[in-house]
């Protein structure tokens, strides 16, 4: 296995790409009881239009298939649900779907290998029937309704709606009651066979392991499957401009909640980490806990807590999101825009924020689950997570200044608000 060592956090990554195309990453952690494994496919809710390798026609499936598949993978031909089997082993098993990947995981202290047997068995053996697909529609329907009552989720989706004309990132990961009603077992098998090929997948394990021995154990559990060719993913042409600047919805919230969004473009692979860090630094300088703007808004009663500051990106999209609660979101938005347009980078502040972010990156290496999830998510964005620790120490003011000019553009900003009637 190839070994990549990071001197900052004093951790090692063992990485290998197998013949069938599957990438295995192992981060050993001596003395930790918890073992965490996550197996993901580079397939999320955004991937509903594609060309199956070997075919020429494009395939389009209803929204929500990736998430539906995630629910259905646990079902086994024997009638036993793998989630039950894993739980019975005393391990904590779960799965999730994002815009760009789907992952199956478990965390345990004992029974790692029996649980790995089960995980690798169920992910490699789908079993869909008309009946079990129908039944799942009831459960997912309840999940969709649960999210309907989350204003935090709605305000987020609305912000995406305001930014994107075409890109599927703006749609609900779960799909809607209407789109999931069209899902059947043939569709599920087709998507499974396309995206759950080892060449489109990666596995990350973190815990107290001998990497080479673990690698062998994983190989022993793989069924014989050849790497398939490239999956052509089709995304609609997304214009650079936004759809509309403001979007508002009425819901039962005690205080208005808001998301300020800034539409951006996905950076080239080699610049991705650097740009991400620059944006994190800028957001902290503008509206972080120690910023002048935050103090001002707090003193005026316009903010009560620091908004959360995020930068999200995957194939075909990138955007900044600032999420918070305020009696007058419009005022927060106006002051934010003003601050951005008058912004000068102060060296002291820049260095202080760099220190802070460095510390935050280091903290991410405390927990096996955080580490494994981070490496998987970054991998699908073509990033090695260690790069963040290296880039943060070398990033300079000039570059950050450039990003400020390029990305924090008035015309790319939107605000989504949810308030009471």
């Amino acid at each position: 296995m190839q070994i990549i060592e990071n001197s900052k956090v004093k951790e090692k990554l063992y990485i290998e790409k197998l013949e069938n195309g599957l990438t295995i990453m192992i981060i050993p952690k001596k003395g930790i009881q918890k073992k965490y494994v996550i197996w993901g496919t580079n397939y999320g809710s955004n991937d509903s239009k594609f060309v199956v390798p070997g075919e020429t026609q494009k395939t389009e499936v209803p929204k929500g298939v990736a998430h539906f598949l995630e629910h259905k993978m646990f079902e086994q031909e024997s009638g036993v649900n793998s989630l039950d089997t894993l739980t019975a082993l005393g391990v904590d098993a779960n799965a999730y779907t994002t815009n760009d990947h789907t992952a199956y995981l478990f965390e345990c202290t004992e029974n790692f290998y029996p649980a790995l047997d089960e995980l690798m068995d169920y992910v490699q053996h789908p079993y869909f029937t008309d009946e079990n697909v129908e039944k799942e529609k009831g459960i997912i329907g309840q999940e969709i309704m649960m999210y309907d009552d989350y204003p935090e989720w709605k305000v987020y989706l609305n912000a995406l709606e305001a930014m994107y004309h075409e890109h599927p990132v703006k749609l609900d990961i779960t799909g809607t009651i209407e789109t999931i009603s069209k899902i059947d077992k043939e569709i599920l098998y087709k998507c499974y066979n396309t995206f759950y090929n080892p060449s489109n997948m990666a596995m990350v394990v973190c815990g107290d392991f001998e990497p080479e021995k673990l690698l062998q154990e994983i190989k022993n559990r793989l069924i014989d499957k050849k790497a398939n060719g490239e999956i052509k993913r089709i995304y609609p042409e997304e214009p650079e401009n936004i759809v509309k600047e403001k979007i508002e919805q009425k819901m039962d919230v005690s205080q208005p909640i808001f998301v300020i969004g800034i539409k951006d473009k996905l950076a080239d692979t080699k610049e991705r980490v650097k740009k991400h860090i620059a944006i994190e630094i800028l957001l902290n300088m503008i509206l972080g806990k120690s910023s002048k703007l935050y103090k001002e808004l707090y003193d005026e009663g316009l903010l009560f807590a620091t908004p959360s500051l995020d930068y999200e990106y995957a194939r075909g999209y990138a955007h900044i999101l600032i999420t918070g609660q305020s009696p007058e979101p419009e005022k927060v938005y106006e002051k934010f825009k003003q601050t951005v347009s008058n912004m000068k980078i102060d060296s002291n502040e820049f260095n202080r924020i760099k220190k802070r972010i460095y510390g935050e990156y280091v903290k991410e290496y405390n927990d096996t689950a955080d580490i494994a999830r981070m490496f998987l998510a970054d991998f699908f964005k073509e990033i090695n997570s260690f790069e963040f620790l290296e880039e943060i120490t070398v990033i300079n003011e000039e570059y950050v200044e450039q990003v400020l000019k390029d990305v924090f553009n008035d015309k790319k900003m939107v605000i989504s608000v949810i308030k009471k009637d």
Partner: protein
Amino acid sequence: MQYKEKEIKKGIKIHLIKTEKFKTNLIAVFLSLPITKENVTKNSLLSAVLRRGTQNMPTSMQISQELEEMYGASFDNGIDKTGDNHVLKFYLESINDKYLPQQGENMLKTSIEKLLEIVFNPLTENGKFKEEYVKQEKENIKRIIEGKPDNKARYAFDRCIEEMYKDQPYGLYKYGYIEDLEKIDAKTLYEHYEKIKSECKIDIFVSGSIDEETIKIVEENENIKNLQEREAQYIINKIEEKPEAQEKEVKEEMEVTQGKIVIGLDLHIENEEQRYDALLYNAILGGSANSKMFQEVREKASLAYTAGSSYVRYKNNIFVKCGIEIKNYEKAMKIIRKQLEDMKIGNFTAEDIENAKKGIISTIKSIDDEQDTEITYFFGQELSGNKVSIDEYIEKIQKVSKENIIKIANSITINTIYFLKNIETAKEEQ
């Protein structure tokens, strides 16, 4: 991991957790006192005002800046209801010196000092808190109290507890009440602070790469020296006999798409050992994906996405929770009642018990893989006055038998069924 505790003054304890597993050191200060209608709002406001500024760092901006200079040390605080105690919690997490880009700093010492400064040396003006801070934080707490219904699942849970513990300390809302908030000013709040500072139970935890020096850093800290000995006023979480309650049903209407059921169960147990039996009972009833609730309500009946239960050991209650389509209320209730009955007649297998034990033991074993979880574990024991090591804990779980669990099942009575539903549906029914 090594755990050590020392009473540095009567009523003030330091707990040291020596571990090399983490990149960080975590320091926590807990102030515990009995929760009452009279003090709950003051405590909640106090917790908010204390993070605003200290004598040496008079603004929150300054606190934040100094923490950022310490490689993003993070301060956090909040309040919790732990049994009949109100606990003001303060945390500071900072990077272990080994992982700093430059050597030669003593981050642990600085972190301890900063945290103690925030808790015990707040900014004052003319013998009271700064007016402006109190005024702003009153607004803040008001907003939190008003925001209580925003999270529907949490709200339904809190409401069920309120109905179960009407006019009792545990029924109080941990952030307090708007009508009481209005009566508090900078002076009365400061008086309250001085009072609890001299009366409450104080626990200081330091977890991370520590040594003998660490106790000294705390003991010799000026803010600690200034604290007096005390007969700490707090409620030891003991098992109390519960009165037989008449089952009641509370329905509330709100703008929701999904209905939320929360059922509060009373456990009538007699001794400490039965708490382990109760943990097993809960795991089988609704504690995992293998549980009856998850299997019967979600998987078989396809009625819910969330379906489970949790055990509140301090009060010996189990709360059954699920989110359902509103029209399925009767159907869901019937299935849930059937599960409670099945537990009583022992309608669960040896395998169910084994699985539940494995799940619980796995959780316990990983307690020392997370610094804050470990602190919470030791603090819970501190409040119940009952020290059990992780190994003993596991042993006790192992020993629980089917008879023990059936006994718990038969001691259980339904106290309150709370249902949060949609407004339109209610109209249709009429």
